[in-house]
């Protein structure tokens, strides 16, 4: 038996009151840690998907919307641009590489993207089973989708028009699954990828049923006249171009160019304000939790006054007895910190399940962030501060008077 063990026994003997005195601390730590986790997870997710994309070109509209739709696949596209216009940009000497993107259909809410094979390389996506698409209407399915919807090779998918499940169904034209992707931890996990021709064909047939008879060459010719794409992901030859080139496009053409890293930092600034307010609120809760802990310690000390006097008569020094109170407080706040962390992880799981439902995004990480170590330091500090007065009172306890009172 020693003072530290005695502190632990004191806490365990009153589990309910111990937890109650920590409720606010757990709450405060939980909120801050949740915000930190979400912030870092969303940032990593966003950055992960930004790799290799310097600029996005699409139809005029909101640049943020263009980024969200073409890079993250969570917003509607701004519109379509003509293939010809896109080609002019592609041929500019500043452009290193480019990838066309075409939207038009979805399968059960998951977007079908018509694109080039380079798109797979961009996200480092590997074929797990099957092969890449060779012909129109052949698709490769992202890992999230094929595991969730139980899709296998040779399945035929009936797509719906537009980006929502409720769109008109293209039941006459079926997509054939030829490949399944490995998880890549990027947006491609929740996409169905196919050739641009698939989308063109599908909507062409739709719009011009009578042109069915055209042979392939003719149709190809026709492509160059009025084919459209939705957006184009561009990587520059030199990072220097990022300043000048987007402005040129925005000013001189009827296209819109947006720089993802810039738009995303703008987005973070926007909802950073909300996060900041919530964080301040949580810090306030932690300060209040310090008071609650103090009141709890103070009361329990008064209840146990006779016990304290007894411990002194058994030979404890004043310092040992004060240490007992300080230990109790520190153990409580440290435990509170870890429970708070646990709560925040449950919160992350909850938010992740919400995001997965509405945005087809998921977040998963259970490491401890550096900022959370600061929260541990803060918890210990709160424990120290709130135990100072009770510890001093115990230090100055008049044993004789306390024993005689009983």
């Amino acid at each position: 038996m020693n003072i530290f063990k005695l502190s632990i026994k004191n806490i365990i003997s009153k589990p309910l009151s111990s937890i109650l005195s920590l409720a606010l601390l757990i709450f405060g730590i939980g909120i801050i840690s949740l915000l930190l986790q979400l912030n870092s997870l969303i940032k990593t997710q966003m950055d992960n998907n930004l790799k290799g994309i310097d600029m996005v070109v699409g139809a005029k509209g909101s640049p943020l919307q263009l980024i969200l739709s073409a890079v993250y696949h969570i917003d509607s596209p701004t519109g379509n641009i003509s293939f010809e216009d896109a080609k002019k940009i592609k041929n500019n000497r500043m452009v290193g590489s480019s990838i066309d993107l075409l939207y038009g259909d979805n399968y059960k809410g998951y977007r079908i993207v018509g694109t080039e094979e380079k798109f797979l390389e961009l996200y480092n996506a590997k074929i797990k089973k099957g092969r890449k698409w060779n012909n129109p209407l052949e698709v490769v399915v992202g890992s999230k989708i094929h595991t969730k919807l139980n899709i296998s090779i040779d399945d035929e998918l009936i797509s719906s028009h537009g980006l929502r499940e409720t769109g008109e169904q293209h039941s006459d034209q079926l997509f054939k699954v030829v490949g399944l992707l490995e998880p890549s931890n990027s947006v491609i996990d929740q996409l169905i990828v196919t050739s641009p021709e698939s989308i063109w064909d599908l909507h062409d047939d739709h719009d011009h049923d009578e042109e069915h008879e055209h042979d392939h060459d003719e149709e190809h010719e026709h492509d160059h006249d009025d084919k459209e794409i939705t957006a184009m992901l561009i990587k520059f030859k030199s990072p220097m171009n990022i300043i000048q080139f987007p402005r040129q496009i925005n000013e001189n053409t009827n296209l819109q160019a947006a720089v993802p890293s810039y738009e995303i930092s703008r987005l973070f600034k926007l909802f950073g304000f909300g996060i900041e307010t919530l964080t301040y609120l949580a810090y306030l809760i932690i300060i209040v939790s310090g008071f609650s802990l103090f009141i709890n310690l103070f009361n329990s000390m008064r209840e146990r006054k006779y016990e304290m006097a007894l411990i002194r008569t058994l030979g404890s020094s004043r310092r040992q007895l004060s240490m007992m109170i300080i230990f109790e407080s520190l153990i409580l706040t440290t435990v509170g910190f870890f429970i708070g962390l646990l709560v925040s992880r449950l919160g992350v799981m909850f938010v992740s399940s919400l995001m997965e439902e509405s945005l087809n995004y998921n977040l998963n990480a259970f490491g401890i962030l550096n900022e959370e170590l600061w929260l541990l330091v803060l918890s210990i500090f709160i424990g120290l501060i709130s135990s100072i007065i009770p510890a001093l009172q115990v230090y100055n306890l008049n044993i004789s008077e306390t024993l005689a009172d009983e």
Partner: protein
Amino acid sequence: MIQTKKLNFKYNDQAAFSFPDINLGKNENLLIIGSSGIGKTTLLHLLAGLLQSDSGSINLYGQDISKLTQYELDRFRGQNIGIVFQKPHFVNSLTVKENLQLAQYLGNKVSQGRIHDILSSLNILDKKNKNPKKLSQGEKQRACIAMAIVNSPKLILADEPTSSLDDENCDRVIKLLKKQASEFNAQLVVITHDNRLKKHFKKSIKL
């Protein structure tokens, strides 16, 4: 071995006490008897070093305890003095055994064997893992005595150990205290207003 000289203690002008000198040789027990409000508990607290006297000296086993610092006094008390309180008190978050272990830790005299010996000598060995709150009154009192003697003190101070007991139990408790004191080589000083105890002590002082 226990000597006090001209002990004075004053709470305020209405409550000022001066105590008769005590002279107690080795292996002698003492009964200090006096009615309520006469400063019995004050004297006990002075002897235990829980209070510092205003004047006079207390010499316990060659140590003038009025000259000790607070820290030294706490140490001295833990190692040499066991106190049996009027009402039994324990650290309620600990079991009987853990209470005794705490006393040993604080008195710096850790020994598992001794806890076992004392509890069996007091006939409460089977209660060692119980919370003291769950013991019967008699068991509590015995556990309280165990707390007082666990560190083999030279002096056992008992404050009104029998005041709330009937004759039969009074007899039993005082005999138990004396037996434990002689068994573990300690001197017993009982402070009480209970005249029934007179017959058990050769030496007594009236306040």
